[in-house]
């Protein structure tokens, strides 16, 4: 079990190529906000996001900063602080293509990729207008049933990159995700997994079965960078709460394009000019 070396945040985000299909975790599972800001600063372009299954500030920032051409999502919102302003503007102006989905379909698509099967079946959903607008979703007759029994098939979702923030990595490069098991699924389903962590745990999670239970093994992970409070202003499970004042202020400020630009300049820093 060799020892791994963390890399810098800036080096980490160079491993998210322009045009990548990027998996974006929900707020409860380690939103990689420091990495998102670094990604905006490096001037990432043409990203296609898949939110697992929804997103708040992370998707809204990436969309507002012009990094995104497409987003598959069950919802983008600022939760109790209302609509996600950049997402809403971009969706209405069609500067970003929104591929509407539903939470269990996104989970199922990732599970299909985890098994490298072309699809997973899912009950329900039939009759939703989502189905009409998802030519990639297929309704078939359940081949296991004697008589007609329509069922929906959800195609595999294979992100190019999974990027998330977690409490800690150990000296072997394993990452502790606790009970946020969707992070394991995302990593399994993705070609490349990049992680930021609060700190390095001295030793191996596998020396303690209690820690091992929440570990994502190193062989799924391509690179790790340390980013203290790397999920802020979003919270991090078991570590810190969201900064509600920051989020409330963002919801207000980003209501106008000019307000969003001011936020970006102040909180994120200068983005490189678009290529």
């Amino acid at each position, binding site marked *: 079990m060799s020892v791994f070396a963390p890399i810098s945040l800036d080096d980490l985000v160079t491993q998210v190529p322009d045009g990548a299909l990027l998996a974006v975790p929900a707020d409860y599972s380690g939103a990689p906000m420091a990495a998102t800001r670094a990604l905006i600063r490096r001037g990432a372009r043409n990203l296609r996001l898949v939110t697992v299954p929804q997103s708040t500030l992370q998707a809204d920032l990436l969309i507002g900063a012009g990094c995104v051409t497409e987003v598959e999502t069950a919802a983008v919102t600022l939760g109790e602080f209302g609509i996600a302003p950049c997402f809403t503007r971009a969706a209405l102006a069609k500067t970003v293509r929104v591929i*509407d989905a539903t939470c269990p379909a996104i989970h199922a698509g990732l599970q299909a990729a985890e098994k490298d099967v072309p699809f997973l079946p899912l009950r*329900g959903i039939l*009759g*939703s207008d989502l189905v009409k*607008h998802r030519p990639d979703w297929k309704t078939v007759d359940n081949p296991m049933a004697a008589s007609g029994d329509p*069922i929906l098939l959800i195609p595999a979702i294979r992100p190019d990159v999974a990027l998330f923030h977690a409490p800690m990595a150990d000296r072997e490069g394993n990452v502790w995700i606790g009970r946020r098991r*969707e992070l394991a699924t995302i990593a399994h389903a993705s070609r490349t997994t990049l992680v930021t962590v609060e700190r390095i745990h001295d030793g191996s999670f596998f020396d303690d079965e209690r820690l091992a239970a929440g570990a994502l093994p190193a062989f799924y992970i391509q690179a790790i960078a340390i980013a203290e409070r790397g999920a802020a202003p979003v919270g991090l499970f078991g570590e810190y709460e969201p900064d509600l004042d920051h989020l409330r202020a963002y919801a207000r400020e980003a209501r106008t394009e000019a307000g969003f630009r001011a936020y970006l300049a102040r909180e994120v820093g200068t983005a490189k000019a678009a290529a």
Partner: protein
Amino acid sequence: MTECRPEELLAATLAAQIPDVRHIAVGAASPIPAAAALLHQARSKERVHVTILHSRRYNSFTDGGRELFDAAAQGRIDVFFLGGVQIDGEANINLVGLGEYPNLTQRFPGSFGSPYMAFVVPNVILFREEHSPRTLVRKVDFVSAPGWSPEGVWRRGGPRALVTGLAVMTFDAPRRRFRLTSVHPGRTTEEVRNATGFDFDMPDRAPTTAVPDAVTLGLLRSEIAAKLREFYPDFAARVFPVPA
């Protein structure tokens, strides 16, 4: 004492729609349904499990984001609450946008898990405070979750009731129609009819929604308010202010 806040009336009214069950789940950003679920739990003689996704204490899922949906598919969740930016007379809900998709004139966050939960959870309770022709429409612009399904389509559950700031309606899935069950205190049947964009059945005389009794209000203001403070601090502070 019997001065009852609108949120208290709605929580008690939602709680009254919950049948005897083992497991009630409440999605994100739903303080009034959360209060209703906790109220039902507090008054139940049996052990009732309440999952509130928004909470740490009331969320014991350990299998990732899919577990709510898988557990619901397994039939382990008996009651779930859904809202809708639009809700129509066939209990379809719209969480996506106004206009002809994808050419929307207004964009909402998205469908979340509604198209799934509406099928797999036996008792779905629709909840929308605003009761107006804008929210309760003849036909939703976009069906996030259909209120009913044609014969031959697997479906375990669906919308059973609709609670708004004005009234309570129950949904008759085979007939694809709502029926007015009660009108909130101080409101009239006429008002409900005018505020509703869809056709619905009305009894000759709609009863008044029961106002929560003193015991219920006591529970809400003490035990339930204390629990809500953990995960809906703003809501709890506004609706259940701690006496100075």
